[in-house]
């Protein structure tokens, strides 16, 4: 593993995708402000063109410009991240002069960055035509702001991306927290960005209050951990945990950190703000919350539970096993039952996202079921590997179909629909392509083969079952009670996904069966970037289902980087 000090040789190259985003941030600040302003050198009459400010040109005041810029930069960052996989990942650590590891670049962190940048690129492409732009003829004060608001929006998207990237790379709980907060604060504002609507403001407020309380509790847990071990490095913490992790102080701290991340993945009972936030935010932002933001929470949980408080720290199973198991059951059941009753498609998707959080928590629970080093050395970590691979795969394909579903709603939102299920009525007649896409996204969410949602659900179930069966020896004396109880989590998961078909199918029924609402008979708005993003989501949803092999291999290498490091 290479080690680089900050701003030493190779630092910028190692963090190229992140620096691209920083460049994007500055570009977005500067380019839309360029005008014909001149700077007069004091005491003279010489005016030097200064470019910043003044009357702006037609191009750089175009309301679509910031969106296109953000999309391009996210795409470049995505491409560079993907490129780093090509000839074998060069694992790199960013270490300060006194030996503190700050960031680590490996397959695991890069894979999560792919998820983040991919989701954000799609969301920013989808938002290009979304924000209301004042017309050029408008001479009022608003005219001055013609693309200022868009700039704010995309700057926030880019800082979200940067914060998420830091979370992915962090090797220190403090760094992780900084990244988490950077991303969180940006999303708080993004949720309430539509200040014209009451729902948006309310959603942002709720999301902010609940989120900051969760962050505060998490931060308190963090400080307790520091008090206990004197370090926030993952490596130091995991050693300390292995020695005396059963003391009260670290357990309390762990519980508090769970609250912080539980909010991010919208696990019950910390999920109450999520449906309001999703419903109030614009659909692309809600899509980011449901995919990238959730992936960030899962990433934090994986780091915390598997690296810091890893199962081998204690005898038998991990300390958090039962707590997390109960949490996962409550989360998936609550999410599904609540989704059954919601008539707002965005709320429905929010609750379905809660249910998916439950499935992922169930998978993480399974990893904690056994002490991998005690008597399982020969099968080493391969069962945990299956689960982590399943999780990463799930989070990756979630970007395809969950974000895709939100993007379809986004097109409906531009004609003031998307808030009721009925506004989807007759979509099959109005726009057959969108209806087919939405139906495929819904089927993928429900886990119908051969779509990627099925493969991800299958992998999660396989991971859980594999762990549950690891301790049994197969012979004719095998009894059912020998199987570890995490098997029941898989059973609850399949029962829950059977329940979930009902509300996913309902969307299809409304699109194909109901007549369009009055005033919605015509064609939908064009919006080439959104449609392009939807097509990208659709193709990947199908491709990662039919040809899942390559993505599984990629996720496996990522999981190996995390699990192999134990």
């Amino acid at each position: 593993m290479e080690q680089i000090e900050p701003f030493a040789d190779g630092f910028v190259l190692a963090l190229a995708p992140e620096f691209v985003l920083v460049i994007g941030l500055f570009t977005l600040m500067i380019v839309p402000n360029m005008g014909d302003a001149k700077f007069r050198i004091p005491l003279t009459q010489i005016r030097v063109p200064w470019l910043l400010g003044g009357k702006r040109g037609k191009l750089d005041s175009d309301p679509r410009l910031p969106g296109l810029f953000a999309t391009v930069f996210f795409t470049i960052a995505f491409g560079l991240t993907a490129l780093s996989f090509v000839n074998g990942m060069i694992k790199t650590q960013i270490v300060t002069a006194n030996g503190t590891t700050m960031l680590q670049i490996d397959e695991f962190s890069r894979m999560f960055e792919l998820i983040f940048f991919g989701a954000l690129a799609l969301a920013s492409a989808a938002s290009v035509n979304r924000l209301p732009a004042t017309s050029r003829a408008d001479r009022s004060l608003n005219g001055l702001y013609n693309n200022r608001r868009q700039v704010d929006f995309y700057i926030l998207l880019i800082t979200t991306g940067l914060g998420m990237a830091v979370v992915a790379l962090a090797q220190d709980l403090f760094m992780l927290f900084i990244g988490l907060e950077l991303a969180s604060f940006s999303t708080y504002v993004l949720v309430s960005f539509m200040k014209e609507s009451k729902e948006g403001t309310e959603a942002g407020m709720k999301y902010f209050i609940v989120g900051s309380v969760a962050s505060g509790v998490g931060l308190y847990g963090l400080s307790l951990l520091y008090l206990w071990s004197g370090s926030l490095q993952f490596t130091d913490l995991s050693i300390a945990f292995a020695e005396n992790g059963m003391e009260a102080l670290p357990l309390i701290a762990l519980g508090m950190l769970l609250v912080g991340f539980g909010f991010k993945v919208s696990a019950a009972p910390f999920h109450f703000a999520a449906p309001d936030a999703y419903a109030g935010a614009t659909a692309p932002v809600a899509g980011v919350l449901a995919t990238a933001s959730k992936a960030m929470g899962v990433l934090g949980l994986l780091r915390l539970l598997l690296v810091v408080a890893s199962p081998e720290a204690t005898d038998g199973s991990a300390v958090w096993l039962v707590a997390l198991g109960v949490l996962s059951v409550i989360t998936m059941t609550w999410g599904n039952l609540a989704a059954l009753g919601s008539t707002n498609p965005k709320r429905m998707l929010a609750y379905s996202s809660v249910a998916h959080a439950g499935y992922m928590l169930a998978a993480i629970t399974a990893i904690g079921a056994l002490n991998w080093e005690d008597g399982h050395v020969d099968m080493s970590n391969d069962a945990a590997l299956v689960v982590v691979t399943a999780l990463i795969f799930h989070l990756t394909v979630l970007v395809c179909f969950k974000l895709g579903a939100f993007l379809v709603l986004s097109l409906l939102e531009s004609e003031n629909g998307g808030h009721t299920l009925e506004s989807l009525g007759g979509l099959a007649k109005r726009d057959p392509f969108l209806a087919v896409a939405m139906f495929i996204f819904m089927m993928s969410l429900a886990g119908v083969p051969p779509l990627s949602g099925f493969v991800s659900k299958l992998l999660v179930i396989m991971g859980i079952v594999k762990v549950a069966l690891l301790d049994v020896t197969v012979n004719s004396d095998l009894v059912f009670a020998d199987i570890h109880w995490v098997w029941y989590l898989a059973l609850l998961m399949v029962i829950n996904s059977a329940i979930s078909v009902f509300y996913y199918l309902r969307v299809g029924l409304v699109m194909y069966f109901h007549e369009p609402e009055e005033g919605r008979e015509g064609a939908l708005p064009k919006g080439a970037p959104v449609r392009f993003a939807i097509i990208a989501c659709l193709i990947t949803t199908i491709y990662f289902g039919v040809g899942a092999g390559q993505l599984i291999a990629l996720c496996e290498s990522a999981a190996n980087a995390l699990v192999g490091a134990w």
Partner: protein
Amino acid sequence: MTTDWISLPLVALPLVSSIAILAFVAYASPAARERMGPSVRMATLIFSLLMLALTTAMFFGIEFIGGTSDWASLSFGSFNYEFRYVWIESLGIHWSVGMDALSFPMVWLTTFLLPVTIVATWNEKNAAVYFPLVLMMGGALIGVFVALDLFMFYVFWELTLIPMFFLILKWGGYDRKYASQKFFIYTFAASVIMLLGLVTVYFLQPEDLSYAGAWTGRTFDIPTLTAHAQVANANGAWFLGESLQKILFVMLMIGFLVKLPSVPFHTWLPDAHVQAPTGGSMLLAGVMLKMGAYGMFRLPLAFFPHAAEHFQFWLLALGMVSLVWGAIVCLGQTNLKKMVAYSSVSHMGVILIGIATMQPLGWAAALFMMFAHGIISPMLFAVCGAFKHHYHSMEIGAMRGMAKHSPWLATSMMFGWMASLGLPLLAGFVAELMMFLALWHFIAAEGWSVLWMVGPALVLALTAAYYLWSMQRTIFEGGEETQPPESLKGQPVPDISDAEKLAMVIMAAFTILFGVMPWIALDMMNGWTVAFFETLLIPILTGGA
């Protein structure tokens, strides 16, 4: 020349062509879609006829195709046209297909029903979308039958839901929304339970089996698993242990019993049938229900014969209840299609009883019933569809004296009804007779009470009763002053169209063919069940325990 790939186009041709047509049609304007209808219909008919030609050639054995045409002596565990291609290497998932005497009759039946369905519903509205969906349905069904990989099996198993869901939703009756939803949720819920069972089996197998995944070391390959289970089950030992085998058997059976369907999981079927369009009903009753019985033979019976013996009583009881309950409910129906749907439930009970007897004769009866019912029940639904189409009503009392007004429809109905109630020399009779013999044999051997025969005997009478009674009320009653249905509003009473006549004649001809010469299909089924019994059950019995 190796021609193992020949089974690939059977699955790929209908799926790829139908998706391509649908994608093409989706971009057309409604008017253009209307214009495309006839050519799309002709294209799907040609595709389905090509498939029928291929499977028929497979049956007779044509040198070019390779493989063996001697299906009956294909030993257990070996497959014709076996073909494997790595799909997802890390998990051991293969695109692996092959046919034996269990699956081949079902594959041939599917390819036979496709063109018949297309012809029978020749004038269906929105043809440019309808016919590709029918074709896609056929492809998915064939995929289920030829799959030799658990993953692939499950993928096609679920894939059949989607075209059927749309067939019911877009072309169904007044309550199609409820019916399509219920159909989807019932079968999906059952099959995810089955999926968990399959995954559990996957991880309980030893690591050194062939076709295993590079990463998990386990295999999804059905023949490999079957062979392994067969070894592990021998000499009284239980593959995977007693309690686990029972639980896994139940988990898999839930998936298949709902699909079959057996009482008490049957309620989706009448709803789906009544609301489905004729073509949907024909494929649903003809092939889709048989997926359940086929799956039972392929997986739970082959993997867990001990558990099957353990639950033998319950299977028999479920079959008996389905048989009797279906027939009793039929008597009370006023809706023609609902009556036929419940008669399907009753016939599926026959299949379940045949399976539950756990002997070659009963299994052969079940297999032949699957095949015979697959030809007869589409005819029943085609009759119902024609009835509905021409008289705009499905009520049994709505049309009287049909023999006078619409002789073709009356004849077809009479023929279908007779075939379904088990008239000798027609295909259904052979299966029912075999089932009776098997059940007698079983009861005598086990020393069970003769009262077990009361149910099936009663059902013979009940079946005759509801069919004859409904015929009397539709075909004959009315005499000189026949009563055309009010729903026609005084228009002249039409007879069925030429296309419908053609479809009826074809189905009737094959019903007679397989009734008079059942050995065409029965030989291979018999061979397969005997081999199945000798390979899987004899070692268990000889081991004692």
